[in-house]
């Protein structure tokens, strides 16, 4: 069986959708962070697949993916630090605790 571009793109978009769903429904901040990571990784897959199948003569998408992985790591590190700060303040990582400021 020949492997086409769609076979990569559809799982990648499902992954992105799962990320958005998790971001909205999860209550644990670490789980929200994992959902965000899913979204960022599906973007990486998109770039690599487009590069491999549509524009095989160049490397621009691959390079973008490398940088995007680096940026995602930096974002996660900072987000974890902030979650730890929140945990120290309220002793929970539940997003429902963050309700002091509203509207």
């Amino acid at each position, binding site marked *: 069986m020949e492997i086409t571009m769609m076979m990569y793109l559809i799982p990648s978009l499902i992954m992105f959708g799962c990320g958005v769903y998790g971001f909205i429904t999860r209550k644990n901040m670490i789980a929200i962070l994992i959902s965000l990571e899913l979204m960022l990784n599906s973007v990486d897959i998109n770039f690599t697949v487009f590069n491999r199948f549509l524009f095989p003569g160049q490397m621009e998408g691959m390079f973008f993916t490398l940088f995007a992985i680096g940026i995602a790591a930096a974002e996660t590190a900072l987000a974890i630090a*902030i979650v730890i700060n929140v945990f120290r303040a309220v002793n929970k990582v539940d997003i429902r605790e963050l309700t002091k400021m509203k509207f």
Partner: protein
Amino acid sequence: MDYSQFLMMPQELGLLAVFLLVFLFDTFMPKKSLGALPVFTSVIFGAFAIANYFMLMRGTAFSGMFESTASTFVMKSILNVGMLIVLVQSIKWSNSEFVAVRRGEFYELLLTTLFGMYLMISARHFLLFVIGLETASLPLAALVAFNKNRYESHEAAAKYMFTAIFSSAIFMLGLSFVYGLTGSMYFADIASRLVGGSNTALLITAIAFVIAGVGFKLSLVPFHLWTADVYQGAPTAVTSYLSVISKGAAAYAFLVILVQVFGTVYSVVWEWMLYALIILTITLGNLFAIRQRNIKRFLAFSSISQAGYIMLGVVAANELGLASLMFYVLVYIVSNLAAFGVVSAIENFSGKVSIDDYNGLYKTNPYLSFTMMLAMFSLAGIPPFAGFFSKFFIFVGALETGSVAIYVLVLIALINTIVSLFYYLLVVKAMFIRQDDCIIPTFRSACSERIAMIACTLGIIFIGIASCIYTFMVDVVNDNVMMFGLLK
């Protein structure tokens, strides 16, 4: 590799030098002299901002990834003005008891975010743009969480961080679609490969995602929910930085992306999206500002509706629109920083941040009340002050395109100006007319805060009247006529 192309980015290199000097001062000077760090940073940055005046370069570097033109140069200089005012304003706060041990980090992070914004303004390749965007927004999240002893600061940082990552993921998904469509990330290559007038589903999705990603930085309305919480929770010095500098840089970058990348599909794809965004942003920003009791949340919603006015310069998409956008950002910087100067002076002295606490302020602190009044008049757009001229020019720039739809849009914006007058005057009324039992007592604000407020007040009074400034910006934009080439 040809290293001489780094000379195309003298402003970035200069800022990097300022950063290194501050870092070395913070690391190697003896503990006793560290109290001079805030003043040192302000002086060094002021020297850089003046030296900057002689650093105009025109050209591209890194095979077109980075471009320096007269208008990017002026935009960065405008940001420098705002940055300098923020630095001077925060001198007293950063020497206060809880902040003093970490003030080095504060200045280093602040300079790093400014560097990211420079990259956003000059980037002509999406990779460089994304790096600039993240360099601008990640240190800002750390700055929002800076106030370790206040719970609100952590909550604000968590909200900012999660929404920032979410929006940057959406933005990058949009970019991946653009890459799939055109096979390049260079602005010029993408523009030449997009068929003029095409409106495939993939292209529309891609542009909507890109608008959503940058709209988050600008806090346009469907993506604005983080704004008020972050403004309230963050330290006031960071809030004032967030509300003017980061917004100005994002507005310019937004215009560059829409015009230089997606210029050929202006009327079929993104013109109508922007109409909807602008109407929502201005109206909802105004309506929510009316019901705020906390002055920082109030200024947050006021800044959301101001962002809507700035977007009128983007939807105009012509030379006059860009010139009035830059002028608007300059005026907005001085007006908003004057308001935040007063807010932070009062907060540093008494810790009060509610609008009701300002009752009767005129009796005890007439100069502060006067500055705040000028800032409110300028934000609302009352004639002799700068805010009137910036609104006037941005309306004129938008009307230049001449379609019926844009007349309706400007009419809605005008009606909203009247609504905004109501809530800006509420603050003035509290200060001058209402009375209270526990008025904030008379106090003398610190020398640095007074310098910053005087500079802002002079700006509010003179920037509008000195018409040479606006003429200068029109000349600067006309210097680079190729920018709007795709739309003609």
